[in-house]
């Protein structure tokens, strides 16, 4: 299954059970990144951390991971 994380195509292995955001992050992100400060949007809609385990991810979905940065 192909999804897009921050615009980059990411291939996820097929699983018997439906995939949720928590599973995607565990599989697709480098070790250590989960501890970083970030916020997430799925297909342009904010998803809170408490909803990662119960939000399904489907093929061609877009996940945006945003990190703190300087700003004016």
């Amino acid at each position, binding site marked *: 299954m192909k999804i897009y994380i*921050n*615009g980059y195509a990411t291939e996820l292995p097929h699983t018997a059970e439906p995939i949720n955001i928590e599973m995607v992050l565990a599989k697709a*992100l*480098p070790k250590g*990144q989960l501890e*970083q*400060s*970030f*916020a*997430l*949007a799925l297909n*342009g*809609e*904010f998803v*809170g*951390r408490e909803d990662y385990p119960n939000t399904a991810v489907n093929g061609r979905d877009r996940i*945006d*991971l*945003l*990190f*703190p*940065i*300087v*700003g*004016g």
Partner: protein
Amino acid sequence: MTLSIYGQALSSRLLIGSALYPSPEMMQQAILASGAQVVTLSLKRQNPLAQSGDKIWRYIQASVAQNQGFLLPNTAGCKTAQEAITLAKMSRELFQTNWIKLEVIGDDYNLQPDPIELLIATEQLLADGFKVLPYCTDDLVICQRLYALGCQVIMPWASPIGTGKGLMNPYNLASIRQRLPDATLILDAGIGKPSDACIAMEMGFDGVLLNSAIALADNPVLMAKAFARAINAGESAYIAGTMPERQTAHASTPTLDTPFWHQREHQ
């Protein structure tokens, strides 16, 4: 006197941005020197492996903590109300604040706010519990609409972001101040020199938000102090009450009994 942001009293009327500094260390020193208690920051995509955001984030947190201040996340880069709403919600979770500097850009050339999208986003975010600080143009009617929606703080621009052109249209800004006497007005964007900030405060603005003018100075720390003093001077001048402007000269030294009184002789 204190500045009130949705009921939160602040001792400094300067709000400062965290971008464009030569280094994170310089950013931190400038923020501390400014005395600003509100620091703006943002959220962006970046390469997670680089972890560069973590270092900046730590510096910003430390700076804000030392000034006993508050974070003000922005929605920079958003071009629609929906984008801005999503980014605001992400910021609220990550930064643990319901303050949001709401930016919805309508034009790529001068980064002018889109007033239509801004109003749509403002209404929805206020309904969702956000304390919205909208960045807008110096259009009186837009400011009135934002205030009517429930924005206690309104932030019209002085001139386009990063231009340093100062107060492009003082008449408009004075009109906004006059017509919205109870709104907290913060001049945001386009400030170039401390005198610009001083003029805004003399006009009765409640505060000034700026970034480039300090970050791009040859000496950001010294410039941060200069802005803090200029804002204090402008505030004092506003409270003191400036003299009325007059069309003709009036001697300040009493003319009666001046030593060499020249009076045209009558023919």
